[in-house]
């Protein structure tokens, strides 16, 4: 079961942010509503062993890139074996978002849920693989 995450989209630059925001951080215009599927790629993550007051140790924090480039801050139960670029699912528990590793079955289900045509599904899988292969140059790209 994939969560839906409420987000906002800038009508001027198409930036998508989650959770929703009143104004685009780059333009003084009101953002419109958007919804995102709660699955994405780990951009980065960390573990705090002495977290701030009100949090239990160890505290796992990750930034996950959802569809349309929206980056999302969430917690996780564990970061063992987690790698930058891994696909994770986002779940809400009591309004707090957590990431969890996706098994092979979840991945397959995700792909089948996508487009209606077999061709699109194959394309989606190919894109995902290609993204993986070419990850380093795109992540490292500097203007």
């Amino acid at each position, binding site marked *: 079961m994939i969560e839906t995450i409420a987000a906002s989209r800038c009508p001027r630059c198409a930036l998508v942010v989650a959770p929703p925001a009143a104004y685009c951080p780059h333009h003084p215009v009101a953002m419109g509503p958007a919804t995102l599927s709660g699955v994405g790629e780990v951009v980065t993550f*960390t573990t705090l062993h*002495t*977290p701030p007051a009100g949090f239990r140790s160890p505290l796992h*924090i990750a930034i996950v890139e959802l569809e349309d480039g929206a980056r999302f*801050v969430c917690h996780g139960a564990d970061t063992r074996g987690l790698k930058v670029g891994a696909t994770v699912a986002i779940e809400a528990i009591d309004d707090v978002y957590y990431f969890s590793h996706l098994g092979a079955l979840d991945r397959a289900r995700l792909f089948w849920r996508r487009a209606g045509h077999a061709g699109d599904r194959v394309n989606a899988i190919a894109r995902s693989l290609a993204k993986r292969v070419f990850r380093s140059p795109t992540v*490292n790209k500097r203007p």
Partner: protein
Amino acid sequence: MQRVFVAGVGMTRIGRRSEPLAQLMADAALAALTDAGLETPESVVVATMNPEEFVGDGNFASHVATHMGLADVPALRIETATSSGAAALYTAFAQVAAGLRRTVLVVGGEKMTHLDTPRVSEIIGRSIDPYERTYGATMPALAGLVTRALMSRHGVGAREIAQVAVKNHAHGARNPLAHFPTPVTVEEVLESRIVADPLRLLHCCPISDGAASVVLTAERARVRIAGIGHGTDTLAVRYRRDLTAFTATRAAAREAYAMAGFGPERVDVAEVHDAFAPFELISLEDLGLLPPGKAARATLDGDTTLEGRLPINPSGGLKSRGHPLAATGLAQIVECVWQLTGRAVGRQVQGAHHALAHSIGGLATNNWVTLLESA
């Protein structure tokens, strides 16, 4: 635009200090005024990031001015989180450049060591996006996220990052005003406690007290402020496309180089904001001092040591000299001026004519680049 010169500089020893904040700032300011041969400036610009919470006092421009006998001189306070000192320098620069004032005293300081580490972390953390804070984000946590993203790049490993701390402690060991003038080894850094994985304790700057001060003037002096640039970025880290470069530094550098009329190739020595060791690697590339992807290798090769091709953080940087928040941006200017006037005893970079100071506010939301040249 009126040309702006540095008439005098001064700073306190950085570390655990018993004096009240206003006294530390008065000590630095009076040292700078003495250095400038001036008793009364035409205006005062004060920088402190959060005296309301750190020491429980507000209205701090009037507080400092009154304490040090400058109650009759117009004083104002400037704040851009951890880069407040650099922002105050810019404000003073603008007053002189615009011809509004002939001499301006800038003084920045912070006092934090009387509080315990979680409380200091909480107060500094107020400069982070409120939503991200609800997920436990502190400055070290965000720096940990940046570090992990950086280390997923080819060629940036734990050793390269540790070497920044080793190098800056080696420099700080030659600075009598440094908070931690003690050398550390790569092994000690790599074995220190994990703060925000993969960031370790010895990758992080200490919590420090101290103050630093600069007197600017329209009269010709030995060092000129050649350019100042200001760059900004989103408060929320999740709004950014790239965590391994700081947009705010790049924008600030572009503006500073354009104002100065020269580029990074002229810089002989630089003070760079290494609140967390990996930030020095990121910043060296953002500032154009090293080509993209080359900072880690150059650091490992010793290019950025005092004896290297491009000495970075001769003072010891935030890592070893210490980071009394709003004092830091000005302590960097003090070091640059000492380097340009041959007064950096024990750590002098020979023949330095152009210096750069780089200050980060918050998690790179409000950054400054200042270029100085011997006049």
